[in-house]
């Protein structure tokens, strides 16, 4: 996977070298034109991906009046818009709730899913293939399939609607996607390591903690990031369980109500949008490699 972040030399970058034959110069010319074509397309594509961020950013800093016009560039820069959003009643609470949901949810998912993934990767037992089949099926199912009885269970029997606990507690009982990803990675670790540890008198659990976990760090990091993002981005869960109680809203859920509360004020809405996007993007820059490895693990390993 490491070669993913390194360029592979297929073509030589354009350069002018003295003493070339006419044929050699022709080859260089084609390569140069190729280089120009590829990079022109890349710049055009980059505009498509980057411009939405730019327009959101510019609009977020416009004045109220200007946000109602068709101007693209702010006449004056209103950095205080970000502050206004930050100080909007509830916004800080949404932040805290989101961090609690994402942080606790990720920790619980890792704690519960790692031993299961290890068992599915390494232990032999009857029904193991069936168990994997069940893991993959649950991973592919939309959450809406079982939401009605789940809601009745949490709301009517445990009286936990209006909180985020119906979303956090299940993560203490594993997450299918995390099990799947971890298992795919654990399969790539040679079992000789564990065998050696067991010869030295380690129990299975000790071998997992002492030998396997240090080697599985990249996969664990990727799974943690995915789960954190899943919670951060989750809209449906908070909509079902938290909508009745604004004190339990998360950023993703609250953001949408923000537009309503501020009606046509696109500047403040985009400032809020920016503040919801920012942490995820900052996190990405810190953990870029883990991320890319995780995405590839979903598709091509195994």
């Amino acid at each position, binding site marked *: 996977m490491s070669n993913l972040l390194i360029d592979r030399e297929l073509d030589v970058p354009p350069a002018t070298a003295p003493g070339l034959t006419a044929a050699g110069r022709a080859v260089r010319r084609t390569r140069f034109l190729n280089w120009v074509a590829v990079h022109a397309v890349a710049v055009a594509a980059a505009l498509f991906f980057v411009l939405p961020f730019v327009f959101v950013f510019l609009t977020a800093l416009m004045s109220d009046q200007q946000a109602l016009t068709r101007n693209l560039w702010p006449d004056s820069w209103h950095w205080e818009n970000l502050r206004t959003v930050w100080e909007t009643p509830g916004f800080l609470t949404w932040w805290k709730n989101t961090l609690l949901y994402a942080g606790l949810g990720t920790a619980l998912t890792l704690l519960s899913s790692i031993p299961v993934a290890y068992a599915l990767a390494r232990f032999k037992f009857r029904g193991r293939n069936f168990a994997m089949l069940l893991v993959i099926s649950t991973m592919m199912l939309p959450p*809406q399939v079982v939401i009605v009885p789940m809601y009745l269970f949490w709301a009517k029997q445990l009286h936990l609607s209006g909180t985020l606990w119906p979303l956090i507690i299940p993560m203490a009982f594993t997450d299918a996607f995390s099990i799947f990803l971890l298992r795919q990675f654990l399969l790539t670790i040679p079992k000789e390591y564990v065998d050696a540890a067991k010869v030295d008198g380690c129990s299975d659990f000790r071998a997992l903690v002492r030998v396997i976990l240090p080697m599985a760090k990249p996969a664990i990091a990727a799974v943690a990031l995915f789960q954190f993002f899943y919670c951060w981005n989750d809209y449906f869960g908070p909509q079902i369980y938290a909508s009745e109680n604004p004190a339990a809203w998360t950023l993703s859920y609250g953001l949408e109500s923000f537009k309503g509360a501020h009606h046509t004020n696109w500047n403040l809405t985009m400032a809020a949008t920016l503040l919801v996007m920012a942490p995820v993007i900052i996190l990405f820059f810190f953990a870029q490699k883990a991320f890319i490895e995780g995405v590839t693990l979903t598709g091509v390993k*195994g």
Partner: protein
Amino acid sequence: MTATTIAPARRPALSEGLRRKRRQERLRNLAFLSPWLIGVSVFFLYPLVSTVYFSFMKYDGFTAPTWVGLKNWTYVFTDYPFFWPALRNTLWLVIVMVTLRVLFGLGIGLLITKVKTGAGFFRTAFYLPYLAPPVAATMAFAFLLNPGTGPVNNILGSLGLPQPGWFNDPHWSKPALTLLALWGIGDLMVIFMASLLDVPLEQYEAASLDGAGWWQRFKFVTMPNIQPIVLFAVITGVIQTMQYYTQPLVAGKVASGVIGGSGQQFEPGYPEKSTLTLPQLVYHLGFQRFDTGGACVIALVLFGLAMVFTAFLMRRGSGFLATDD
């Protein structure tokens, strides 16, 4: 580790020590698997059975449920005005959005393997939108594409091009959602990029020596090598379409101007049911109309569809179930 999968017949009686070892192994397996065994029973199997049960019941969440036979099923398929539009939209999204996403993802993946200068910048720029939280990304696009002051129509207008109504026009709402989906192509880009880099260089060199042009190299070297990944992308794309919920719902809400949050009720599908998807119907019936039975019927339809495509995915032997022994 000794095998526990044994053929019990014709095997001599096990020694006491071996039997104890087996028992210990079974206990160990159970201990490691217990979080999942509890989770899958309480949060999947039990509610699934319960969903089937409620699909035959009339229940509004307050009075006791009563048996109504197939009434919920016939209601959803014949009288519920949202069901068929949602299914039609899903078909549209599968044909147009999934196809375009795979083609675009492959194109961007190819492009990124060819870029030599500023590769790091381009990779990050192409990948970043995938990370934008769906609600935030949808809000951003609702702004970019709004017919009144949106920058996109602004630019289209100054170029003398037609300015569609996007999320406010039933004919343009799904294309607008498709644009949003293409913006977040990062996941597919990375998967395609990885598989393209895995194609052996020698094959390209051999093809070049044989005088193959770029199209022939793509057709006879690249495609055969990445074909399994293309199939993987198509099937997971279809499964994701079955789960498509947040973007169409939020886009509809923002474009229609209905205030979000707990107050006002939003009838999903704005404009004119053009953004309805099946998961939204579960919410609409179950949580807005308090028709538990109808919601469970939709949930089971969704379950059936998702299972069919998951079976496809596993049939193709992607190594999902591969073991090392």
